[in-house]
């Protein structure tokens, strides 16, 4: 399914529980959507860099199983942006459901 424009909010949501590296963020989004939201993983990192530039996530270098990793975590501004986006999404979803009807 095409999730154009929604990837940043999905990344923020994936980071709410704990800081993580890019690969696991991608897997978490796919697992939680039960495979419906299937995006190309090469586009994940530009989205992460954009969120970092905007101050919504921060990153630190770490090591996992002897392999260098970059861990991303959500900031206070990221939490605020996520809450705003979530409210907007619920409003939009409710409006579309009202028009299309419940399945």
């Amino acid at each position, binding site marked *: 399914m095409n999730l154009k424009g929604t990837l940043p909010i999905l990344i923020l949501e994936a980071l709410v529980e704990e800081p993580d590296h890019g690969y696991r963020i991608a897997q978490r989004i796919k697992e939680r959507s039960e495979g419906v939201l299937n995006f*190309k*993983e090469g586009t994940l990192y*530009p989205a992460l*860099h954009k969120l970092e530039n905007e*101050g919504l996530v921060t990153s630190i270098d770490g090591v996992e199983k002897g392999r260098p990793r970059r861990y991303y975590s959500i900031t206070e501004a990221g939490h605020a942006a996520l809450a705003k986006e979530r409210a907007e999404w619920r409003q939009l979803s409710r409006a579309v459901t009202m028009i299309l009807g419940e399945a």
Partner: protein
Amino acid sequence: MATLATNSLDSWLSRATRHLSRDAAAQVRREIGEHYESARETAALTAATAEEADRIALVALGDAKVANCQYCRVMLTSAEAKLLRQGNWEARAVCSYGWGRWLVLGVAAAGLLGSAGLLIKGDGYLGSAMLAGVMSIGLFFAAKALPIYTPVRGRIFRGVRLALLLAIWVLAFAPHTLQWSWLMFACLWPLVLIEQRRGAIRRKLPIAQWPRHLYL
């Protein structure tokens, strides 16, 4: 087999990092390399062969050209990195030498007095042309001395600079400003290009990492 996979990944990375600065390209190579290794390990659990696992990991990355477009929007390109390194060269060229600064100040002061004298005498054409010259000098070299170190002040300064640039043009070519407007567009396009690049750098770099000249 490992060489084949490395070649495929290298080819993907070469396309994904086109036009990016050296630092940005190195970062992309590192993060995608890590990601690819993890994806390949996971794919190896279900794939029949190692080649199949490599192929699955590479396909999951998607189109390198699309990734390149997105990277270029959020990371510094080589042209932007060069501009960032050069900084405000026009101000630095003069202000890094003590005598240069005094020379510019002296020329500006003499020009200001000269233009005032000419305007009082009634020689409007030469007086306004000289005033335009003095304003040009101030425009390019005074910025370093001004207390501009916040994005808002930077935006105000750039707005004032644009207005001054137009005023200089009007002063220099009055009363035939419109007739010579083609020359203005021909001369200004390099400045527009540089400003556009500086704007892109401002969008891409967090404010905390802005060097002084990026505010100007």
